[in-house]
């Protein structure tokens, strides 16, 4: 049964990702992308990474894609003329893609190509978690421990990063007249 589900969701993910690239309409493309993200979330569930699956749906399929759709509709994209890539670009992209696929096939089917060690299965934090070694587990609790101990400082700096981005967007987009600091130009008196 899990095998069947794996193939089902992988096919869903890959097929909709392919449709993203070929769909003519940008809104359709964004919709296919949502399907692809949901398929990936299902794959995470099959891997017992429930937290990642929830994040995938909430953040990517939810927030990020809403933003994408918003921008597409706001800018009215997809109405302009389509630009066909020139022949050189097409050839380079085809060769690059073929190389990538052959490399992936080689790594997958040749056991000696990539030395791999089995990953330990952890669902709870082990006894020997130390300062330099926070193991990643599938429980959301371990992410919390990591964020609030080892990664506390970057976590806080990220907050400032978001603050700067927010202030920057407001500064760059708010109307100059409403800056309100000083009466810059004399307003025309009401007649």
């Amino acid at each position: 049964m899990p095998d069947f589900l794996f193939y089902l969701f992988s096919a869903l993910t890959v097929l909709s990702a392919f449709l993203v690239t070929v769909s003519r309409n940008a809104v359709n493309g964004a919709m296919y992308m949502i399907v692809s993200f949901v398929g990936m979330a299902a794959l995470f569930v099959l891997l017992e990474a429930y937290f990642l699956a929830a994040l995938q749906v909430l953040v990517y399929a939810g927030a990020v894609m809403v933003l994408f759709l918003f921008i597409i509709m706001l800018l009215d994209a997809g109405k302009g003329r389509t630009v066909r890539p020139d022949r050189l670009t097409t050839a380079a992209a085809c060769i690059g893609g073929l190389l990538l696929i052959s490399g992936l096939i080689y790594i997958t089917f040749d056991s000696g190509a990539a030395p791999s060690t089995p990953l330990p299965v952890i669902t709870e934090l082990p006894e020997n978690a130390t300062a330099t070694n926070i193991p990643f587990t599938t429980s959301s609790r371990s992410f919390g421990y990591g964020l609030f101990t080892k990664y506390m400082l970057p976590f806080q700096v990220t907050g400032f990063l978001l603050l700067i981005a927010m202030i920057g967007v407001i500064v760059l987009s708010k109307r100059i007249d409403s800056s309100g600091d000083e009466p810059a130009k004399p307003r025309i008196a009401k007649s």
Partner: protein
Amino acid sequence: MNYNGFQELAATNQWSAIWPELSMAGIGLLVLCLDLFLPSSRKRLIPLVAIFGQLALLAVLVMGCGCATESTGPLFGGMIESGPYTPYMRAFFVLSSTLVCYLGVSYLSRQNLPRSEFYLLTIFVSGAMMLLVQSSNFVMLFVSLETVTIGFYVLVSYCRYSPFSLEAGLKYLILGALSSAILLFGIVLLYGAASNPALAQSTTDSMNFAALGKFIAATPEEPLVLVGAVLVLCGICFKIGAVPFQIWVPDVYQGAPTPVTAFLAVSSKAAGFLVLMNLVAGPFAALSKLTVPLLSAIAIITILFGNITALGQRNVKRVIGLSGIAHAGYLLVGVVAMAVGVALAPWAIIFYLFAYLFASFAVFGVMVHLAGVEDEIQEIDHYQKLAERQPFLAGVLAIGLGSLAGIPPLAGFIGKLLLFIAAFQAELYTLLGAAIIGVVISVYYYFGWMREAFFIKPALPGDEARPSYPMPGAVGIIHKLTLGLLVVITVLMGLFQRGIFGG
């Protein structure tokens, strides 16, 4: 469930150790709150709060510089580690940020732009730079670098109804994002290689500089490591504007508001170099067979490119930008000497950065004063007969440019001399030759600018067709004091070096 490991980790989160960064964040947040709650008649207080807050912090930092500075070891679970240079660089960034805010006051008084956000962004970005130069973990490095870069995206396009500023902002956004992507890709390759349990000395904490350094020392030939290291160095070279990653420099320097250009030229470059020094002496120490030739080649091309392209420029901001590329080249010579293992090199770099700060801000102070509303199109011709009209500004300009060119009694000369001594000790004679040729070339365009200010050209036929430039207004007493202080420090640093950095 055992919590001991986490308690150990939480114990290294010593917030008191990063009090200067926290104070910067505090000043920034204070400015934000004042902007919200002050009535608009009192808004003039905001730049005063920003400048004097940072001056107070600077005073405390400078007093602390003289004290013994023992390394505190890794803090925040190995995220940051303060080294011997940290106190100086903290003072450097606070000083630079104060001066940028100061230039911002005179710049913004001429523009109809939002005010307090400028100070806010400058202060936050400087705080992030102070963290960036201490970071000893790639997670911390990337997060603080992004904070700096995103702040700069906004600051560069701050004057948003100027097409130059917008163009500069767009170019900086695209190339900055590209360089971040390259850097991140390098980090990921290093992470992947160092976490591979099949390799010797693999580590579970492979973002940490110390652990990564051990791994690289054990497997310096691993191709994934080499590619990753080269990509990381490329990403940093974008930030410091070294050739072949210098394309963005002239346009962005020209289009950005002048105080932001100064901020980019001084603080951003210094932060990039400190990161480069940390990397070359830290995790990539075992890769000196790769880093020394790579950075040497970049340094030679950078010095020659910057100086030669600056020769033909007439726009002063482009001249400053292109000569800034050349300065990055001289500093790269110091980094190479450091990678070879010369003990003098890091101190020479820091001295050079300080000399560059004082001289650059003197020149930028004059530029801000002379600029009209559209400060992107300031040509060298603007400075004609400056000595007649404003002898004080002409003197400041002469000393600032002289220091940048490296004329003997000034700080810039000693900075270059120290770098060259370090290069000589490291036996980098080719680099030394290229740097000396570069300095000779640079004298031409720096002095051409000075000649414009001091000597009156005979009137040629056709001169009437040239646009006449408005006379700059009188220099205020505060502006005089600030510029005078910068010049005096430049001269004093050239005459007395004993006592700085403990002799």
